[in-house]
């Protein structure tokens, strides 16, 4: 074969590729911006379940006009804006043809058509299929089995029959449902923030048991409660409740914080050498002790003197876990009574922040020195490693420690570290357009997935702490302004998805969930650390604005 023939064959390959690519692009794309002209899906929801669905081409408002059909029933009208065929009836192609939280899917079989709207798919928790690859957990498109099962049920056939003989389309809708709320940067006012924090704190207080523990994780769609529990998260929720109770002088929240604190003090405190620690079983971590210490200090500041001695004990335990280089040993073997020098994410930052906070009530110079060394360790970056400017974790306690310690032991290197990290976070924020308006300000976890609220919220806790120090340290106004805008956009993202009151029609017990922050637009579970982080960030900003 001559070079000329060779190049000609390559050109043919390129041409065929371009034609195929163009065809695929125009077949699968849908135009979300065009005026809606498709049929209306009129759904009636009652006690969190869809009880009826009618598809009409006009006058959807006359289909169902009031609660005569049942108590608490609610009508939702969704109009199809555009639709496109699913390219191929295969598990793989169907799984990757639906945009999470935005697309619905329809199936036609035997002359009948069934629709799963975005509300249905959210209710089914079908928008994300989690695939375990060794230690990694990857989201690989939608959960095709759930989608096929639901569509087949509506069409009176079997899922495998439907996949083989049905024809599928995806579609975009406009809905009259008020969730997510339409909140822009301009709506993030001090009043809106205060109200959001109060709602989040009340969510935790409402979901507290008599013994002081919380309903750890609630599924907003089913109302089911997870059986798991986690002491660092219990302590974090207690810390937030104590802060909210004290800032808003809300006795109910303060009592809830006290109950949660008493649970740790009386029922989850163990002996770790000469000191007390928090947890259960043969091994504890310093995360629970650090967050419990933060909560105790906050409760102590609110006048609960019974937490003084336990706070000092926990501070002693954290100091005893610190190494000479400032790092902490993150675990302790209760059974064998010795520290375990293993590190995981977050705990060093939590311990540093807790020791700095403890110094405010202990007055013990050792606490401040331990916090100062911990902070120096956390922000040390080798000038030889260029990647230190590009690779960042989700660790969000360091910058809160920076803010807490700044007036007593200012660390300019830590401030630079936190400003750099926030610059990276700004780059990770969704911008609308091209992103959907409801994602604007959220931290991306990839272009094909809905952003999660808690990674945004925890970064916000650090961002507001950085803003506080940046203002105090005289950082140039332009940089401070960037940070403020980034914070407000991210708050707008969180407020859009907070259950105030949320998609109540599809929730089995909306009263229980009110004020909670879900995992994401497609994961409507509320775990206790979700309102803790979101509420914590908002409260920190509210406190800053009061100054």
């Amino acid at each position: 074969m001559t070079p000329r023939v060779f190049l000609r064959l390559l050109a043919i390959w390129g041409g065929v590729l371009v034609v195929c690519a163009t065809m695929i692009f125009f077949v699968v794309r849908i135009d979300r911006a065009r005026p809606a002209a498709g049929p209306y899906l009129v759904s009636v929801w009652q006690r969190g379940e869809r009880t009826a669905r009618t598809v009409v081409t006009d006058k959807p408002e006359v289909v169902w006009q009031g609660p005569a059909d049942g108590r608490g029933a609610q009508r939702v009208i969704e109009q199809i804006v555009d639709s496109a065929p699913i390219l191929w009836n295969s598990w793989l192609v169907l799984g990757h043809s639906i945009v999470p939280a935005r697309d619905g899917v329809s199936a036609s079989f035997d002359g009948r058509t069934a629709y799963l709207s975005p509300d249905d798919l959210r209710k089914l928790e079908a928008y994300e299929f989690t695939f375990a690859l060794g230690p990694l957990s990857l989201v690989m498109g939608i959960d095709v089995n759930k989608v096929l099962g639901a569509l087949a049920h509506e069409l009176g056939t079997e899922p495998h029959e439907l996949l083989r003989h049905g024809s599928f389309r995806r579609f975009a809708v406009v809905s009259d449902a008020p969730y997510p709320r339409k909140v822009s940067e301009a709506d993030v006012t001090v009043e809106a923030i205060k109200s959001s924090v109060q709602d989040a704190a009340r969510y935790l207080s409402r979901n507290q048991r008599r013994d002081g523990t919380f309903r750890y994780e609630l599924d907003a769609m089913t109302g089911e409660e997870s059986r798991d529990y986690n002491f660092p998260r219990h302590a974090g929720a207690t810390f937030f409740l104590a802060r909210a109770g004290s800032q808003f002088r809300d006795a109910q929240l303060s009592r809830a914080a006290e109950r949660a604190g008493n649970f740790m003090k009386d029922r989850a405190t163990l002996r770790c050498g000469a000191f007390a620690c928090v947890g259960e079983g043969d091994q504890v971590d310093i995360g629970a002790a650090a967050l419990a210490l933060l909560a105790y200090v906050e409760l102590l500041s609110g006048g609960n003197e019974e937490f003084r001695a336990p706070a000092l004990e926990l501070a002693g335990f954290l100091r005893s876990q610190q190494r000479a280089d400032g790092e902490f040993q993150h675990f302790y073997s209760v059974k064998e009574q010795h520290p375990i020098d293993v590190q995981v994410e977050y705990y060093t930052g939590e311990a540093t922040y807790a020791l700095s906070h403890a110094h405010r009530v202990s007055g013990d110079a050792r606490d401040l020195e331990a916090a100062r060394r911990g902070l120096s360790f956390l922000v040390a970056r080798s000038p030889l490693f260029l990647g230190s400017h590009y690779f960042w974790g989700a660790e969000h306690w360091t910058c809160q420690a920076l803010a807490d310690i700044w007036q007593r032991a200012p660390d300019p290197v830590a401030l630079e570290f936190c400003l750099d990290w926030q610059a990276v976070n700004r780059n990770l924020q969704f911008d609308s357009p091209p992103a959907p308006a409801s994602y604007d300000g959220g931290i991306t976890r990839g272009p094909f997935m809905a952003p999660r609220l808690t990674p945004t919220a925890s970064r916000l806790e650090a961002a507001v702490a950085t803003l506080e120090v940046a203002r105090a340290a005289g950082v140039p106004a332009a940089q401070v302004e960037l940070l403020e805008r980034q914070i407000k956009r991210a708050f707008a993202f969180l407020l859009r998805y907070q259950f105030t009151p949320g998609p109540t029609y599809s929730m089995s017990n909306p009263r229980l969930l009110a004020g909670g922050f879900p995992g994401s637009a497609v994961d409507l579970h509320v775990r206790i650390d979700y309102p803790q982080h979101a509420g914590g960030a908002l409260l920190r900003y509210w406190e800053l604005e009061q100054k």
Partner: protein
Amino acid sequence: MRVTFGVLNALSALVLLVGVFGVVQPRFWALDVPLATIALLELASAVGLLAKLPWGLRALSVSAWVSFVLGLLVVSCILLTIVFLRGIHGDYGVAGLAVSALIVALLVPYTVVLPALELLWLKRQRGESLS
């Protein structure tokens, strides 16, 4: 050139074998079989070229053709997947496009350019031996 192509094919085979069997988990025949086939063919051609064995050029021809055709197939699949995802998700941002383009840019030299150069060199070799 014989030595250069021998060394390059040996390196490509090594990268493929380590990449597929050392890094990628779990095992999946649809990926393992074609990539292992290419790697073994490249390894055989490298041995043949470096040791100046009589079947060296023939082995190079087979490995180059197989690599070239499968390479074009892989690049086509990746490009069509990018277009498909862009059609489904709309404009998913510069970062997504940059990552997709980077993957193609990293693959093309090994899967398309190297075997193409080998085929052109083989063509010239045959021309010279005939004249």
